[in-house]
C-alpha cells in the first residue's frame, strides 16, 4: 500500500532534480531555481516538525504524530530560531525575559550549542529564501546560490535528525510548546 507522507529526503531529491548539480547544456531556468530553493526549505521545515513532535510524543502512534505535526506552523519554528539568533548576537528580535532567563540564565550555563545555532541559522536563512522564491519578483537565484540553499538544507536536515544534546532537545521542546493546542 503506497504511503503519501512528506519525507525531507524526498523533498531534497526533488530540489536536486529542479536544480541539478551537473548540467550538460544550458541550465535550468530561474523559475526552477526558485522552486528548488523553496523545496529545500520545506525539507527542513518538515524535518523540524517531525523531530519536535517525536520529542514530546515519542510513543504515540504514527498517524497521531502526523496529525499533530500539522499544528506546527512556520512562524512557530521561526520564533524559536529568532530567540537563538538574538541571544547569539546575530539578530535583534524581541526575546521575552522568561525565555532569555531559560536559555541564557544570568550566571548559569547557556542552553545553546553549535548545533542549535546551525539549525536556527539554516532554518532562518531558508525561511527567508522561501519567501523570496515564492513572492519576491526582484529576487535573484543564481545556480550556484540555489545549489548552496540545497546543500544548506541537506546539512540542516541531517543535524535536525541526528543532533541530540540537551540544548537541541530544549530547542525542539520549545518549538513543540510554541505550537500548543489551541482552538482551531
Amino acid at each position: 500500500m503506497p504511503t503519501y507522507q512528506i519525507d525531507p529526503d524526498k523533498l531534497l531529491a526533488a530540489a536536486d532534480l529542479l536544480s541539478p548539480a551537473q548540467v550538460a547544456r544550458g541550465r535550468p531556468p530561474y523559475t526552477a531555481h526558485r522552486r528548488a530553493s523553496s523545496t529545500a526549505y520545506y525539507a527542513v521545515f518538515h524535518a523540524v516538525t517531525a523531530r519536535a513532535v517525536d520529542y514530546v510524543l515519542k510513543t504515540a502512534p504514527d498517524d497521531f504524530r502526523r496529525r499533530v505535526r500539522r499544528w506546527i506552523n512556520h512562524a512557530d519554528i521561526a520564533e524559536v530560531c529568532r530567540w537563538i539568533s538574538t541571544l547569539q548576537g546575530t539578530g535583534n528580535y524581541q526575546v521575552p525575559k522568561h525565555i532569555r532567563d531559560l536559555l541564557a540564565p544570568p550566571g548559569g550555563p547557556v542552553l545553546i550549542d553549535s548545533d542549535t545555532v546551525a539549525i536556527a541559522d539554516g532554518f532562518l536563512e531558508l525561511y527567508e529564501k522561501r519567501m523570496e522564491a515564492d513572492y519576491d519578483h526582484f529576487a535573484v537565484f543564481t545556480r550556484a546560490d540555489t545549489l548552496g540553499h540545497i546543500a544548506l538544507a541537506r546539512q540542516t536536515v541531517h543535524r535536525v535528525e541526528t543532533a541530540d544534546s540537551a540544548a537541541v532537545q530544549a530547542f525542539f521542546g520549545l518549538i513543540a510548546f510554541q505550537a500548543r493546542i489551541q482552538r482551531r
Partner: protein
Amino acid sequence: MNEPEAIAALVRFAETYRDERDAALAVISARAVLDENAAGESVTRLVLLLPDPEADTWDVDHVRDLRLALGRLGTELGLPPVTLTLVPASQRDEVDAFTA
C-alpha cells in the same frame, strides 16, 4: 549612526571579508538594501559578488561563518536581520545590482 551610514558600514565590512580557508569566499563587491519580506518584516538584503566556487557551490560551513559575521555586525549597527544572495563572478552581468 543613521541607516544609510549603517548600510555603508556593513557593505565596507563585507567587501573586506576574506576567508583564509577558502579563496572562493573573498568578497569582490557587495550591495545592500533595506527591504521587507512577504510577511512584512524588515530585512537587510545583502548581495555579494564572489569568485566562482571550485565545485558547484560554496562551502556551507564557510558561508555560514560569513553570514553569522555579517549578522553580528548588522545587529550591532541596529540593522534588520541580514539575508544573503550570492552571485558568482561569471554571472556578474546577469545581476542588476552589479550592472546598474
